């Protein structure tokens, strides 16, 4: 492992690292903007040459470089959200979560690629370029935080920020063989995260190690006066190795790709061996979560994305004759197909007279799944689920069309609907591709998730893809 806190301050190491990153990124295209010098300037750490290598790291994340998904605001960096409509937009402010990291010494080195506004599972929906999986560049890295997951997997940064609305951190983490944390809703401020589905999404972390995941989370969490949906993170410390893991019986009847099924079984075996108790639970509402998730997410998205109209910022159609035409045309040209589809869906389900049928019904399902989980957590400490029914797939609609990609959100969107924390951890490498598993815990029980992942990490640490910065730096 490279000494991450030294890379930016040692000119020689910095140069080597930067060259490697630029080189590797040519193949995986994880960055939309890569500018470590700007990040260093912003963090107040000073130019690499200015900082003596020996300076003690007085802050927990001192000198550590990280990448930020390009739907999270960092002042002076672009904030494109992977969309043409914001292709030249430079953020005038920084997200609270990023500010906290910067205040603790971490340095933003670039912005990572994503599905436009976080809408997708493959990072193919980026208006600029798809990102490729470092394990196999012919495969997708997952999404929507595909750029962040690929950057961490390729070893370019020890961690990256992503956002998770329905699995957008955990699924790419699983595809790339790294850790992905979707924290409890409200535990990390959303201020600065460009909203897609406000009631579901949260800023989270993709990292190479569990300890990094934990350290970064501890810095980022906490109530923010700028986000009224944020909450003080009350820590819950349940039992360590005596923790009970619940396994939903519904998993038996859901079709899983063989390598995923195999990994699920081996994970259960491994945890049992470590001394964890496994018991069966039931999540009867599991089959409705995808429908409920897409109704709520698109409804909120239809309002959240209304602000992109070319009037105050962003791409604008200068040939428009009047303000109304300008708004229409800018949106028509600026948004991609998937975004338009979701705005239409959201507008449809919110029509007056139809809310009862769609939006309000989805809210009822949401309440039901939350209750299901509450009930489950009365008897178990955590719930084990796959992250995704299959490992990284090939781009285009050959292996998975957009509709089946949505259906596959079944295991991840559950945690978003319930607002609970969930973590995706690398559990195996099968057929040359990493496979991740997922643990869900009650609200604010991140600590338990870290300790369970740490236990598994000892047995199976994050695997390295064939070509990465680690091989190069060693």
């Amino acid at each position, binding site marked *: 492992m490279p000494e991450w806190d030294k890379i930016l301050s040692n000119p020689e190491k910095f140069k080597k690292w930067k060259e490697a990153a630029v080189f590797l990124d040519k193949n995986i295209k994880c960055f939309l903007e890569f500018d470590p010098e700007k990040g260093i300037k912003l963090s107040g750490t000073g130019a690499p040459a200015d900082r003596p290598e020996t300076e003690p790291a007085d802050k927990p994340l001192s000198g550590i470089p990280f990448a930020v998904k390009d*739907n*999270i*605001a960092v002042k002076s960096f672009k*904030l494109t*959200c992977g969309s043409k409509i*914001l292709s030249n*937009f430079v*953020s*005038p*402010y920084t*997200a609270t979560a990023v500010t906290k990291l910067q205040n603790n010494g971490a340095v933003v080195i670039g912005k990572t690629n994503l599905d436009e506004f976080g809408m997708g599972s493959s990072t193919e929906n980026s208006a600029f370029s798809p990102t490729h999986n470092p394990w196999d560049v012919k495969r997708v890295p997952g999404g929507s935080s595909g750029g962040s997951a690929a950057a961490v997997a390729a070893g370019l940064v020890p961690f990256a920020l992503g956002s998770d609305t329905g699995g957008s951190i955990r699924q790419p983490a699983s595809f790339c063989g790294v850790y992905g944390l979707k924290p409890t809703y409200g535990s990390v401020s*959303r*201020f*600065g*995260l*460009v*909203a897609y*589905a*406000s*009631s579901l999404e949260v800023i989270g972390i993709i990292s190479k190690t569990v300890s990094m995941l934990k350290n970064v989370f501890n810095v980022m969490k906490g109530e923010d*006066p*700028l*986000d*009224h*949906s944020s909450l003080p993170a009350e820590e819950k410390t349940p039992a360590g190795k005596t923790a009970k893991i619940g396994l939903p019986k519904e998993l038996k009847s859901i079709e899983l790709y063989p390598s995923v099924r195999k990994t699920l079984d081996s994970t259960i075996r491994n945890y049992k061996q470590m001394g964890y108790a496994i018991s069966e639970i039931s999540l009867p509402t599991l089959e409705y979560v995808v429908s409920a998730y897409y109704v709520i997410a698109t*409804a*909120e998205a*239809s*309002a959240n994305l*209304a*602000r*992109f*109209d070319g*009037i*105050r*910022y962003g791409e604008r159609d200068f040939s428009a004759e*009047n*303000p*109304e035409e*300008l*708004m229409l045309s800018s949106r028509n040209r600026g948004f991609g197909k998937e975004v338009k589809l979701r705005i239409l869906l959201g*507008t449809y389900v*919110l*029509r*007056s007279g139809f*809310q009862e049928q769609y*939006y309000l019904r989805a809210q009822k399902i949401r309440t039901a799944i939350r209750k299901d989980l509450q009930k489950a957590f009365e008897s178990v400490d955590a719930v084990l689920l796959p992250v995704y029914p299959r490992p990284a797939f090939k781009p285009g609609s050959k292996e998975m069309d957009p509709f089946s990609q949505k259906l596959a959100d079944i295991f991840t969107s559950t945690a978003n609907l319930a607002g609970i924390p969930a973590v995706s951890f690398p559990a195996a490498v099968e057929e040359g591709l990493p496979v991740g598993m997922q643990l869900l815990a009650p609200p604010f029980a991140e600590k338990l998730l870290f300790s369970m992942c740490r236990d598994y990490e000892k047995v199976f640490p994050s695997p390295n893809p064939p070509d990465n910065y680690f091989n190069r730096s060693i």
Partner: protein
Amino acid sequence: MFQSFVGLEIHIHLLTKTKVFCGCKAEFGDEPNTNICPVCMGYPGVLPALNEKAIEMAYLVAYALNCKLNPMAVFERKNYFYPDLPKNYQISQFRSPVGTNGFIDLKYRNIKKRVKIREVHLEEDAGKMIHAGDISLLDFNRTGTPLLEIVTMPDLEVGEEAELFLQNFRRMVRYLDVCDGNMEEGSLRCDANISVNLRGKGLGKKVEIKNLNSFKFVRKALNYEIGRQTEIIERGGSIAQETRLWNENRDVTESMRIKESENDYRYFPDPDLPPFRPDDLFITNIKNRIVEMPEKRRKRFIEEYGLTGLQADFICEEKERADFFENTIKLGADPENTALWLASDVKKMLNRYSTALKGSRLTETRFFELLNLLKEKRIHGKIAKQVLEVVFKEDKSPVDIIREKGWEQITDRTKLSAVIEKVLKENSAAVQAIRSGDNKPLGFLVGEVMKTTSGRADPGIVHDILKEKLSLTFIHIISMGGAITGELTDDGTVVPGNPDIIIKQVEQKTGFSKKIRLEEISISAILSEEITPDDWSSLIFRVADLLNSQDTSGIVITHGTDTLAYTASLLFWLFPQPLIPIIFTAAFSPFTEKTAEKTSNKMSRSNAIINLSSSIEEAAHLSPGVYIYLDDRILSPLNLKFEKAAPGGFRNWNLKQPVFAGKPVKNVSQELFSRENILKKLKTAVNNTFLVKTFAGMRGDILIKMMDSGITNFILETYDTGTANLSESPYSLKKAFSTGRERGVRFFCTSQQETTIDFSRYITSRELWKEGAIPMGSLTAESVYTRILACYILAESEEELINLMEDTGAYTY
């Protein structure tokens, strides 16, 4: 018959320092786009943070409007695209607003009504778009400033009522210090929804009117719109559901857009803002912050302090003024004088120094001191005014001022008695003349006393002591003509006569105590049906003069019967609280030796002598007030009806108890009356005012002809023998009302019989009220008529005149 429904949507800008969801200054008059930030500009990734002060003010207003306070206020997104709306949705409230089901009690033209408030909700304002040539400019300073929307139920019926509602509402929010209420600058905005339908058919098609940026426009636009819609329905047409704009240049509403269907705003709860749940402490704070609302305070001031409606209006208009008033009262000042001074001399001084009460040199303590000096008669009125000027000029207390300037009045009876004793001794000839029946030297003696004291003697006390020392009671008899002083000709008709004859008879036949001195003033020798403004103004002037001179102990007015009800009530309105009794009397036939002695028939025997002599006796003894004395009966000047069929020819209508003194139309000092002035005003009043008995068969269009000839005040008297109607025909009053409204004509309606007789088949005063008439409660048409005359005499401006005429609350006995 049609019914109109008016509901208002009022928006007020809350007086918070910062915007409702971000920290920007909530000032929108600044250089465009200077008070903005990523949050209010709807930049990607930002979140709203609720301004605590704004939500407090929202709950405060909801509480003041008697709303049910919501334990969970939810913010929702109202989705629509518009360039001045940065997020293209407005954060507003929909399913669970701050407050619901409130009300404001309103009293318009004497009819009380509860206007229900549907809801109060907090939202953010949009920016401003200006089109300049072929470019459009946007200013986002206003974006995100806190707006409170208040929606009423369609409980209002006419423009005037809506205007009054808005004025009351504006006063409330100013009292609460949550909005400055400036309609011109847009900090109080109003849209109106209006529908007209056949009576009993419920709401009609709704039309929304926008661009109502003054109280006047609200009134005018609504009345225009009621007329427009009524006309369409009458013609058999149907109303288009649409939004209309008020065109203030043309005084009409114009179609802006037809609403095919309601806009779908796709409301849903804003996931960025958790519901606001006020805790007990929050609610307690709101309740502690509430102040007494202007309407309530106004009512209390009338009840507790005996102010007139108009005085209470003036005092309660501004909270600061009402506080000042009440603080002064608490120090011990007399409420009526306090109100009187605030509305006149204090107001004048504040205008002169262009300052507000708060922070002026006139503190409550100083003001009380001044009023107290007056009350204790240490200074009189004229000096008090000078003292007030000095307070403002030199910033000193009234007590210091009169001490420094030596302005204190001599009120010490012993001191004055000594002076008077001396004056009487030195003028024994004058004293002798008075004792032998000549009253003229009295004024001379008063003058001598004043001279001796360099004008500082209290004139009232001087008079008192003089009369006491000379042991005199002066009764003045004013003759206004009529049968009581007339002569009977040989053919049996009555002609004007010489009052001396009957007065001599009275003096001879009854032999009063020597202490009663009679002084006769002949104003008119006409028959009372021909009374003119000239006669009335002479009478008013003489009565005022006598009251001012303080030389008289009582006034007897001999009058004809036909117009007695008018003259008596006119004097009541002008002198509601005289310091002496004023007694009207009359007779049905003149006194002659023949009728006095030979006729045994009671009705044809003259009651002239007995009525006059008894009135003189009563004038010496009754407590102060205005009376009618006839055939051993004392009647009230209010609601007097001359009806030949009534016992004695007169009776009082609608009075549970006779009223002899009352609340003035306006507090005014009688010094102000000058004969020319009264005459001029009375002439205008008589020329502008007409009393109509709305009998069945009366053509309503006649009233329009009368408007053409200058009538601006109609008194409509409804009768149990049938009334004019409100349908569509030449006999209808409908057209007269609508024409009258356009021309600013006022209608007053009286219905003396509605309480006792079934009126269900006739037009009632309530229906006339809906058309715009001011109901006058239990007053008779005669007293309503003279009340209007009194208003003309007392008003100092056109605006005050209208106020006095319409502020009838205090007189519904």
